[in-house]
C-alpha cells in the first residue's frame, strides 16, 4: 500500500513537472513563431499603409488621397474603422483562487476561449451551454494573486506545493482547516508578511502558461485572445480591482510576471509596474478599472490611498494608463445613480449600492459620486480645471466578470457568476459565495465591450480601446455610431455615407472637440440599430455634463430620437414611456413596439463656449423579461419580491469632450 502511494505521488509529481516542461518546450515552439511570422504580416502591411494614408490625408485632405493613391487593399481605401467587434475583457477560470474555491475546479482558460468562439460547454450545473453568437475577442483576466495556485496545489504540482505558501497551506490542511487555505487569497493582500505570496520563479512559470495559451487561441482576423490578468487591490474591503490588458505576444508579455496586490494595493504602483513593462519590453499595456460601485467612494477619489490630494502627476498617469472603464458588469450597473441624478428616470437601473465588496461598511451618500461613471466624468472636468489634466477622461466598456468561465450576458441564456448561480430553481434565492455575499437574483446579465476597429487583431482592438472608440452594452449587441463636430448638417445623418461624413467633419466617440467657430454650438450625428437578435429600441438620449461659470458641476439628459407616436410632455419635459409587451408568466415579449433603428442629428441647445463639457449617448431597448423572470417561468418557481420583472437593456457610448 505504501509503495503504491509513493508510486502515485511520483507519477503526480512527474506529471506536473511534465506539464511545466511541456510548456517550456513550446516557448520555443510553433505557436509563438507563427504569431510573429505568419498571419501578422499582411495585416501589418495593411495597417502601415492605412496609417500612412491617414497622415497623408491630414496633409493633403481626403480628396487628394482619393485621386492620387489607389490603396494597396481596396477596402482599406476607407481610412476609418468599419467593424464593431464584440467581446468580454473580464472573465475568470479555475486559475482564479476565488473561482476555484467556489467550485470552478475544471474550466480552464482554453475552455473560456473555446466557449467564447461558440463551442458548446458543460457548465457546473450539468447543463450544456452555448452562445447564440460567438464573441470576437476575449480577455481571460484571472486574479494575479496566487494565479493558478489553488488548482496546482490541489493536484500536487511542485511549482506550488514546494513554495512557502504551499507549505503553509499544507499546514492548514493537516490541521483540518482547509477554509483557512481558501482565506489566504484575501489575507495575502492585507498581510503579505504572514501569508506568503508566490516567489517570482513560480509566478513566471505559471504566467508563461497563461500567456502561451492566449497566443495559441489568438487567430488574427478571426478571434483575438488577449493576455491579461486582474490586479485585485482591496483596501478595507473596498474594491479597487483593475484588469490589465496587453497588446503584445508571448515574447514581450512573458518578460515580466503580473503585478499583484500582495506587492502593493496602490493603483499608482500598478501604473509604475505598467510603465516598467513598456520600458523593458517596448510593448504596450493598459489597465481597466473594475466597476466602482463596491469601492465605497475610492474608485474616482479626491485623494490617493495615502490620503494626499490627487495632483497633476496622478491625473496624467491615471489618464495615461486607464483610458477605458468597466461601466457595467454582473455585479451591478455603474453608469448613473438615482441619488446623484434625481431627474434621470432611467438612472435607477440594476444598481448595487448596499456596501463594499468586503461587506465591511455600509454605503453612504457621499461615496456615490466617486463610484458612478457619469459623476466621475463630471469630477474629471473639475479636476481638469484645477490641475490642468483630467484624471477621469475615460471611455466605457462593459464586461461580465464571470467566475465560471462561460461568458454569458443574455437574459434568456444567463449562466450567472459563480457555479452556485448557474441556472437552477434556487439560484434566485441563494446568495453569492456560499451565502457570504449578496442574493444572486441581483446579478445583472451584463455586459459587453464593443470596439470600432479596422480588423480583428490584438493591435487594432487595443489601439481602438486606447483612443476610446469603444462603448458598453448591458448584454445586447446594439450598434451605435456617435460623431461630434462643428459643421454637421441636419441632412448628413440621413445620407448613406453618414459614417464617412462623421469621420471627415468630426470626431468619433472617445474624441475631443476644442476651439469651435465663434458662437456655434457643437453638432452631433448619432445612429443606433437594434441588436438583430434582440429587442427593438425605445429611445436615444444624449447625456451632457458640464462645469458652469460658478464651478458647479451640472448634468442634463436629452431625449433626441425615439420610436414613433410619442410626445414630450410640455409640463414635465418627459418623453412618454414606450410601454411594455412583456408577459411575465411566460417570460416572453414582442417587438411590436419600439424602432429597429434610430438616427438623428443633434445640436446642443444650451452651449456656452467657455464651459468645459462632455457628451455621451445612451440607447435604451424596449422592456424584455429579466433573466430572473425567464428562470421563474422555466423552473416554475416564484420570483423574489424585490427582483425587477423586466429590464431595458442599453448601450452607453464613450464621451466626446469639449474643452474651451
Amino acid at each position, binding site marked *: *500500500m*505504501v509503495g*503504491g*502511494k509513493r*508510486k*502515485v505521488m511520483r*507519477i*503526480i509529481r*512527474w*506529471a*506536473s513537472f*511534465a*506539464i511545466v*516542461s*511541456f510548456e517550456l518546450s*513550446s516557448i520555443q*515552439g*510553433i*505557436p509563438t513563431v*507563427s504569431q510573429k511570422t*505568419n498571419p501578422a504580416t499582411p495585416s501589418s502591411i495593411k495597417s502601415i499603409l492605412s496609417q500612412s494614408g491617414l497622415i497623408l490625408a491630414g496633409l493633403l485632405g481626403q480628396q487628394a488621397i*482619393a485621386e492620387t493613391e489607389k490603396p494597396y487593399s*481596396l*477596402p*482599406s*481605401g*476607407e481610412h476609418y474603422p*468599419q*467593424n464593431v467587434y464584440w467581446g468580454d475583457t473580464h472573465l475568470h477560470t479555475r486559475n482564479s483562487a476565488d473561482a476555484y474555491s467556489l467550485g470552478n*475546479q*475544471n474550466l480552464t482558460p482554453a475552455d473560456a476561449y473555446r466557449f467564447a468562439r461558440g463551442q458548446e460547454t*458543460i457548465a457546473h*450545473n*450539468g447543463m450544456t451551454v452555448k452562445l447564440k*453568437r*460567438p464573441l470576437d475577442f476575449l480577455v481571460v483576466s484571472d486574479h494575479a494573486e496566487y494565479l493558478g495556485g489553488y488548482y496546482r496545489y*490541489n*493536484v*500536487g504540482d511542485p511549482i506550488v506545493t514546494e513554495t512557502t505558501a504551499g507549505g503553509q497551506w499544507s499546514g492548514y490542511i493537516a490541521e483540518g482547516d*482547509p477554509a483557512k487555505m481558501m482565506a489566504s487569497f484575501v489575507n495575502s493582500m492585507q498581510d503579505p508578511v504572514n501569508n506568503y505570496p508566490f516567489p517570482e520563479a513560480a509566478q513566471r512559470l505559471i504566467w508563461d502558461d497563461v500567456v502561451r495559451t492566449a497566443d*495559441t487561441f489568438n487567430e488574427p*482576423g*478571426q478571434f483575438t485572445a488577449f493576455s491579461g490578468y486582474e490586479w485585485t487591490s482591496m483596501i478595507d474591503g473596498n474594491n479597487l480591482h483593475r484588469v490589465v490588458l496587453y497588446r503584445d505576444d508571448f515574447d514581450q508579455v512573458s518578460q515580466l510576471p503580473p503585478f499583484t496586490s500582495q506587492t502593493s494595493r496602490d493603483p499608482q504602483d500598478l501604473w509604475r509596474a505598467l510603465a516598467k513593462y513598456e520600458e523593458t519590453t517596448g510593448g504596450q499595456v493598459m489597465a481597466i478599472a473594475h466597476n466602482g460601485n463596491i469601492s465605497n467612494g475610492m474608485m474616482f477619489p479626491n485623494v490617493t490611498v495615502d490620503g494626499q490630494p490627487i495632483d497633476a502627476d496622478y491625473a496624467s498617469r491615471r489618464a495615461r494608463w486607464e483610458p477605458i472603464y468597466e461601466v457595467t458588469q454582473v455585479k451591478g450597473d455603474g453608469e448613473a445613480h438615482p441619488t446623484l441624478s434625481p431627474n434621470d428616470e432611467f438612472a435607477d437601473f440594476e444598481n448595487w449600492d448596499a456596501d463594499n465588496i468586503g461587506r465591511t461598511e455600509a454605503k453612504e451618500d457621499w461615496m456615490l459620486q466617486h463610484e458612478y461613471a457619469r459623476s466621475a466624468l463630471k469630477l474629471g472636468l473639475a479636476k481638469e480645471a484645477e490641475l490642468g489634466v483630467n484624471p477621469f477622461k475615460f471611455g466605457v466598456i462593459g464586461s461580465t466578470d464571470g467566475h465560471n468561465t462561460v461568458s454569458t450576458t443574455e437574459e434568456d441564456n444567463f449562466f450567472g457568476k459563480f457555479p452556485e448561480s448557474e441556472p*437552477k*430553481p*434556487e439560484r434566485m434565492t441563494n446568495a453569492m459565495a456560499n451565502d457570504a455575499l449578496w442574493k444572486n437574483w441581483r446579478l445583472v446579465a451584463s455586459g459587453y465591450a464593443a470596439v470600432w476597429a*479596422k*480588423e480583428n487583431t490584438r493591435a487594432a482592438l487595443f489601439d481602438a480601446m486606447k483612443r476610446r472608440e469603444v462603448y458598453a452594452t448591458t448584454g445586447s449587441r446594439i450598434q451605435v455610431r456617435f460623431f461630434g463636430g462643428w459643421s454637421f448638417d441636419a441632412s448628413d445623418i440621413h*445620407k*448613406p*455615407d453618414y*459614417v*464617412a461624413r462623421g469621420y471627415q467633419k468630426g470626431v468619433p466617440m472617445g474624441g475631443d472637440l476644442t476651439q469651435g467657430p465663434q458662437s456655434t454650438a457643437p453638432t452631433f450625428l448619432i*445612429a443606433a*440599430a437594434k441588436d*438583430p*437578435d434582440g429587442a427593438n429600441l425605445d429611445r436615444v438620449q444624449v447625456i451632457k455634463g458640464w462645469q458652469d461659470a460658478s464651478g458647479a458641476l451640472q448634468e442634463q439628459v436629452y431625449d433626441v430620437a425615439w420610436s414613433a407616436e410619442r410626445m414630450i410632455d410640455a409640463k414635465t419635459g418627459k418623453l412618454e414611456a414606450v410601454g411594455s409587451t412583456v408577459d411575465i408568466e411566460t417570460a416572453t415579449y414582442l417587438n411590436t413596439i419600439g424602432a*429597429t*433603428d434610430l*438616427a438623428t442629428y443633434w445640436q446642443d441647445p444650451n452651449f456656452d463656449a467657455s464651459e468645459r463639457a462632455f457628451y455621451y449617448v445612451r440607447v435604451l431597448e424596449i422592456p424584455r423579461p429579466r433573466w430572473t423572470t425567464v428562470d421563474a417561468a422555466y423552473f416554475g418557481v416564484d420570483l423574489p419580491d424585490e427582483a425587477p420583472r423586466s429590464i431595458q437593456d442599453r448601450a452607453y457610448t464613450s464621451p466626446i469632450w469639449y474643452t474651451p
Partner: protein
Amino acid sequence: MARSILREPLIHFVVAGLILFGLNQLFFEQPSQTSNGMIVVDQAAVVQFIQHRQNRSPEDAFAQWQALPKSSQSKVVKDLVEEEALYRKAKAFGLDEGDYVIRRRMVQKMDFAAAGLTETEFTPQASALLDYYEAHQEQFSVPAQITFTHVYFETEKRAQSTALALATQSLNQLNAGKVSFSEGGQYGERFAYHRNYVDRAEPIIVDHFGADFAAQVFQLSATPDLWQGPLQSRHGLHLVLIAAVTPTRVLAFSEGKAKVVTALRLAEQDKRRSAFMDALLAEYQVAIEPGLGVVQ
C-alpha cells in the same frame, strides 16, 4: 461513530451495491475478469451524485435528474462511474479519505496524473503531425470571408415594385459611371448597420441581413468593377460591389502547424486518458440499474 458511519453516503452506496449485486446475478451479464469489486449505479446513487457535486438538496437533485434528456442522463452515469473508479483507485493507493470535497480532490489528482502522462511522452514526430492534419482537415479550415459594399433601398415605406425600379435604375447608373467601392456611399439610402463589410464571415452577414441574403451574396463572384443585384434582405433591396470572396479553405500544413500541434496534443491526451480509464474500469464490474443510462 457508528451513527456517523450509517450517515456516510459511501456506506449507503455499498449497501445498495450489495443488494443490487444480488439483482445483478439474476439480470445482468457478468463483465469479464475484474478484481476490485463492483460499481453499482442505481437511482439513489445518481441522485446523490448530483446532490454532492452541485451542492443541492436531494429533492432538487432528483428533479434535475428527471428533467435531463436521456443523453445527458447517460453522461451523468458515465461521470459517476468514472469518479467512483478513480476514487477507489486513489483510495487503494492510500491517499486520504474523508468528505466529498476531499473525494473530488483525490479524483482530480488521479485525473491530472492520467492526462499528464500523455504530455510527458508527447514528442510529436513530423509524420504524426502530418497524418493528424490529413485525417482532420475540418479542424483546420478557415471560414469563408467576404468584402463588399452595398447601395440600399428600403422596402418598408415604399412598394416593392417602386424599390425594384429604383434599384434597377441605380444599378445602371453605378455601372455606367464606373462608381468605385468608396464612392458607392453617395447612392441609395442610409442603412442601419454597416455600409461596408470588410473580411467578414457568414454569421455577421446573417445577423445583419438575414440568412437568404447571406447565402446569395456568398454565391456571387468578386467583380470589383461591376455592381451586382439587386439582392433582397429582410430590410429591402441591395446592390452589391464585391471586392473579394475568400471561400472556405483548409490551412496549408505550414500555416496551420501550430494548430496541428495543439490539436494533436489534446487528442493524444484524450486518448491516453480514455485508455487509462478503460484499464481502470476493467478492474471493476459496473452494474447500472436498467433505464438509467449506458456507459460506452
